[in-house]
């Protein structure tokens, strides 16, 4: 026993001594690699079947390149096609009966990472595969609007004709393209098996980086693809590291152990701290399309009254929150569309912090103060409301605390009841199981239209199998008409006009309390040049990573 112990001790000391005396590879940055840290690990990499944004960052921006993509100015630019179809040029045609025809010209020279050619045939096959009811496709909303995709000349398969069944304003944003030769055999055998295909773990793409390895729980390694037609990526290797704890990720940034971060769960405070602690790291605060808000349940007898909703908006000091909690970086929202969305309307009714006005509105609505300072409704019941949000989200919990205090000042007692994100989104919002208020964010895109969020036929009910995202349950006839029209309006100017009118109605009726627009927060090392965060979901920090370089 004693000998055993003694030898164990000796071994231990030897290992410690050795480990302390070695020069550490980790300490020196190798400049042929860029390490990007994320607080998430992808679920799979065939994005039509998977849900996590982390997968989209790796797959859709480095390993794959789409037909067209957005740049950091949020302009569409062509990648694997020659140009973006427009009505003016005639390659986007409006046909009678509400149908459309869009013609795409593919560029030659793009290849899949196994060397096979990338053509329009891959696109038309992918469309067929995704629309098959037996494929595990997540959403078929867009696909169902498409009648067919044709490749007229099989010998020269570089032209794709997309026939649309209905008008859709964003028919020029491209389509998903997967390598037919890789997936077809499994697809013919069993479409349901596609999610477990090797492609989901080890994708063969067409982008500037090819896939090398995925060490689950740790990292994904990519390597520059030598035959990328728009120039071989300048940094040889791209490594994605998954560090789930945002504090630990922050420590890694400060210690220069990751060169860039995306989907990092950082708060503004953490970003400021990174800048303060490590001047070599740049923190990017990019305006985005993320709308933080509180849905009000309009079927509640108190909240059914517009004056009560407006009173709540007046009672909350959103300007102070923006200034104090976010250092003025995240602007107060007055409507549901963010400033950078084309349809944003700055001239809607605004609800400034005005507790006196809030109290007046509540009195008008028939509420009277009770002995404990909390209001009583006409039937004498104490006005206690419940607010729910995702448990564990620090910022939302802070906002709740502030709201609790401020609403108490106008006589509304706020009860806080938070649930884990899975339960909140899987059950509470989807089935409208929140009694009064629920706080969360919608992450939108330039393609976002009001229909899914605000049309009255999008109120989820048991009868419609919980379809739709109009969780407040807003019903307004004019709004319904505007939503329907905007969904089919191709002309940008006309569509924007519809959206602006819709927002005026919305702000007047106030089915939800708009809080603020969130920023997209990313970091990158200052010696890493050409990093241009876009702030769009789907366009991650690495959207142009083939152009990144290390400078001295």
């Amino acid at each position: 026993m004693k000998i055993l112990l003694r030898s164990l001790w000796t071994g231990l000391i030897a290992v410690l001594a050795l480990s302390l005396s070695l020069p550490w590879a980790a300490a020196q940055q190798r400049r042929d690699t860029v390490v990007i840290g994320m607080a998430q690990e992808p679920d799979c990499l065939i994005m039509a079947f998977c849900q996590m944004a982390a997968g989209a960052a790796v797959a859709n921006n480095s390993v794959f390149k789409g037909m067209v993509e957005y740049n950091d100015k949020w302009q569409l630019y062509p990648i694997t096609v020659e140009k973006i179809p427009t009505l003016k040029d005639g390659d986007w045609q409006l046909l009678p009966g509400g149908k459309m025809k869009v013609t795409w010209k593919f560029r030659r020279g793009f290849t899949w990472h196994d060397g096979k050619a990338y053509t329009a045939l891959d696109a038309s096959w992918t469309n067929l595969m995704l629309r098959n009811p037996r494929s595990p496709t997540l959403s078929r909303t867009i696909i169902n609007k498409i009648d067919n995709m044709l490749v007229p000349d099989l010998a020269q398969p570089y032209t794709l004709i997309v026939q649309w069944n209905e008008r859709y304003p964003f028919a020029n944003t491209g389509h998903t393209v997967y390598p037919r030769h890789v997936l077809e055999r499994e697809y013919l055998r069993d479409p349901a098996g596609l999610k477990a295909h090797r492609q989901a773990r080890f994708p063969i793409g067409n982008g500037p980086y090819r896939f090398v390895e995925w060490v689950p729980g740790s990292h994904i390694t990519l390597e520059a693809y030598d035959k990328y037609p728009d120039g071989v990526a300048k940094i040889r290797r791209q490594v994605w590291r998954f560090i789930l704890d945002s504090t630990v990720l922050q420590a890694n940034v400060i210690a220069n152990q990751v060169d860039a971060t995306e989907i990092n769960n950082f708060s503004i405070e953490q970003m400021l701290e990174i800048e303060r602690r490590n001047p070599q790291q740049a923190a990017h605060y990019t305006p985005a399309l993320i709308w933080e808000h509180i849905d009000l349940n309009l079927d509640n007898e108190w909240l059914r009254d517009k004056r009560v909703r407006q009173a709540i908006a007046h009672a909350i000091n959103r300007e102070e929150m923006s200034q104090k909690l976010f250092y003025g970086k995240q602007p107060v929202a007055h409507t549901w569309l963010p400033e950078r969305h084309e349809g944003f309307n700055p001239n809607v009714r605004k609800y400034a912090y005005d507790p006196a006005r809030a109290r007046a509105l509540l009195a008008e609505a028939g509420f009277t103060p009770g002995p404990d300072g909390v209001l009583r409704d006409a039937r004498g019941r104490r006005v206690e409301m419940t607010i729910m949000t995702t448990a564990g989200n620090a910022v939302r919990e802070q906002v709740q605390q502030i709201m609790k205090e401020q609403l108490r000042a106008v006589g509304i007692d706020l009860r806080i009841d938070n649930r884990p994100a899975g339960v909140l989104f899987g059950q509470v919002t989807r089935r409208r199981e929140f009694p009064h208020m629920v706080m969360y964010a919608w992450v939108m895109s330039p393609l976002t239209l009001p229909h899914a969020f605000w049309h009255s036929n999008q109120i989820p009910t048991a009868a419609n199998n919980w379809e739709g995202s109009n969780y407040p349950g807003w019903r307004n006839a004019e709004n319904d008409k505007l939503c329907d029209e905007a969904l089919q309006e191709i002309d940008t100017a006309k569509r924007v006009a519809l959206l602006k009118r819709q927002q005026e109605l919305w702000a007047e009726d106030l089915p939800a309390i708009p809080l603020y627009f969130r920023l997209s927060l990313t970091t990158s090392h200052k010696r890493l040049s050409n990093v241009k965060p876009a702030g769009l979901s789907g366009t991650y920090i690495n959207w142009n990573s083939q152009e990144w370089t290390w400078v001295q």
Partner: protein
Amino acid sequence: MAQSTTAREFALDLERRRKEAAGVALGQSYWQIAWRRFRRHRLAMIGGTVALALSLMALLAPSIAPHPFDRIDLGRRWTPPGLTANVFGTDELGRDVLTRIMYAGRISLVVGYVTAVSVSAVGSLLGALAGFYGGWIDSALMRLVDMLIAIPTLPLYLIMSALIPGGGVGRIVLIFTIFGWTTVARLVRGQILSLKTQDFVEAGRAMGASEARLILRHLIPNALAPVIVAATLTVGGAILTESGLSYLGLGIQPPVPSWGNMLQRAQEYLLKASWLAVFPGLFIFITVLSFNFLGDGLRDALDPRLKT
């Protein structure tokens, strides 16, 4: 409890203790001797005093806290600790950390105490049933115990937290009790097994006492000593486990403050305001430490064999 390692250490002594305790009816003098022995245990005395002080602090929080509970002051965010109005500094909403620590202590200590009581109650009852009746009840309960100690408890807590909605004290105590009764049950069962063959039980039987009366009035009180020790260690264990669950986002939910969720929340600001993490961490540490010392002292005091 996962962390009450000392409880296991205690289980080690049990085998011996059972033999020793044979025939010793625990009378008045036993507790007097124990108290005298306990007083000599310096660390346990310190632990007991600190535990008492912390409990008083939590109990009296509304009257002794320097600031009103949860008063937000966005103008005083991030005040570092010092000799100002906020001795422990302020947090991300300008709330006084010392005040929050006191109120959070009420929750954390309640979690600890209530878990200890309910774990001991459930464990004693089930253990006594198993020990007294033997047979299939014993086998079934002991298989259940084997099952529950065969897997780490944290994953079970995780699943249960996701299963039971809400985020209050009741839920945490319920979860801790469902999986935490095993240690006490085994201790009591062992005690009962050795006690039930003894004279006073036989005497009780002969005098026609009912089984329930025998268990509740004679057997359990006589098996009390190890349960008291295990319960004391459970207080610290529960507080520690709650903080671990809070770290994973599944403990007591804000706005109800507990030391665990204060610590979890402070993590995000660790580099900016380390005091937010230092104080709750320190209080957890000190509390668990003092209850462990206390439990250790009680064990030595209640076990006539170990110390001379």
